[in-house]
């Protein structure tokens, strides 16, 4: 367990000290939120209507943007190979790195998103359900991103292919995330059901994604 924690802490420290790591994702997230009102016009009623969807899409794309960071550097300098040699199974290493990505990228964005909704005139009633849905889903986003990152690690044009591989898997998260975010004020039952499915997706990802990521990493490390 201490090895697991050490990997998580190491990755968090690296992400915080490297410029261009987590910072890129947050900058991109802000850029989308600022550009959106400029793009569709400053109509406050319209912005309020599209605010939850915009926040979700910005979250998804920002997490995706930073996905290749999860394994790439460690693969290139050989530390991933060392990690694969022993102490803990590669599945746990993959989980640790996905967890570190979640803590440094997806989680801060999910925490900040409803507050940044102010920029989009987000309806105050929607802040809490949006928050709950994003917190529940953000771990799944990081885990799915880690699978994409593991599949494409070491490929020259990996960045584009990550999007093609991971975006289809993000669509269910987006659908239930939106229905949970919009369900609360109008329909409590819809919110409850969507939240349950979101949590179920996240739990399934916790179990399945590290296995898939580790299998992919083994192929590339060979």
């Amino acid at each position, binding site marked *: 367990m201490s090895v697991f924690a050490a990997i998580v802490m190491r990755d968090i420290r690296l992400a915080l000290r490297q410029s261009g790591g987590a910072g890129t994702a947050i900058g991109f997230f802000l850029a989308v939120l600022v550009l959106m009102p400029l793009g569709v016009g400053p109509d406050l009623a319209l912005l309020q209507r599209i605010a939850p969807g915009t926040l979700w899409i910005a979250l998804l794309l920002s997490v995706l943007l930073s996905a290749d960071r999860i394994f790439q550097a460690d693969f290139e300098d050989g530390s991933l190979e060392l990690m694969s040699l022993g102490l803990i199974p590669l599945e746990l290493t993959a989980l640790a790195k996905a967890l570190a990505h979640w803590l440094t990228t997806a989680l801060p964005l999910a925490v900040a998103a409803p507050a940044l909704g102010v920029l989009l005139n987000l309806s105050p009633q929607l802040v809490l359900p949006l928050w709950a849905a994003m917190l529940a889903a953000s771990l799944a986003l990081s885990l799915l991103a880690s*699978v994409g990152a593991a*599949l*494409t690690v070491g*490929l020259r*044009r990996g960045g584009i*292919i990550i999007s*093609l*591989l991971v*975006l*289809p*898997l993000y*669509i*269910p998260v987006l*659908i239930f995330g939106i229905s949970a975010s919009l369900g609360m004020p109008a329909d409590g039952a819809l919110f409850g059901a969507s939240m349950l499915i979101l949590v179920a997706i996240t739990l399934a990802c916790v179990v399945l994604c590290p296995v*898939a990521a580790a*299998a*992919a990493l083994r*192929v*590339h490390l*060979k």
Partner: protein
Amino acid sequence: MQRFANPTLFSKLGAAVLPWTAAAAVLLLAIGLVWGLVFSPADYQQGETVRIMYVHVPAAWMAMFIYTAMAVASAVAIIWRHPLADVAAKCSAPIGACFTFLALATGALWGKPMWGAWWVWDARLTSVFVLFLLYLGYIAIWQLIEQPQRAARIAAIVALVGFVNVPIVKFSVDWWNSLHQPASVFKMDGPAIDPSMLWPLLVMGAAYLFLYVTLLLISMRTEIVSRRIQSLELAAVRGQARGRVGPAAQSQRA
């Protein structure tokens, strides 16, 4: 099954089976299309547009069936390292993508007169679109990774990860109320569709299945041959290189 792991045996077998599956595909397509498009009755609600069904519904079945076949082949490839399973999965993907595209396109053509919209974002349409993207991602992996062995393993993982979408496609119309009509053929209590329409539909399904098998056999045989050529070329290049190194080294020594 291991007996058929020999690509030469498989190629021979494929060559023997191929004319029969091709003939069956052509025959069934002819019967199914004429029966469905000309002789089957028009629907009491949808009128003549129901005939799109005979092209659209079996294509959607094949879209799911082929992805399932890919996932099974990928699992076989990962577990038993069966050398032909990778080839089968790789060659299935473009065919499956075409069937998925056919289902999406004919669905849009059918949706316009029935729902008044080419495309609605309901669960069935969205999940089939996701299936299409998964096919593209799978194909892209093969294109992107140069070493065939590595590409095969990675592609197999992609196929298995993407398989979670198939049950979502199948049950999306039951889980979510949407414009799309619920399942009416493959149900626990038997098909809820009149035999005059069910039979041409099933004939078309069989026709697509034989079409898939035919195309798969052709494509797999081509893949096996091209791999053989590649390895022969590689061996030739290696031989040349060895030949060139030999005299050069000798002349240096001299």
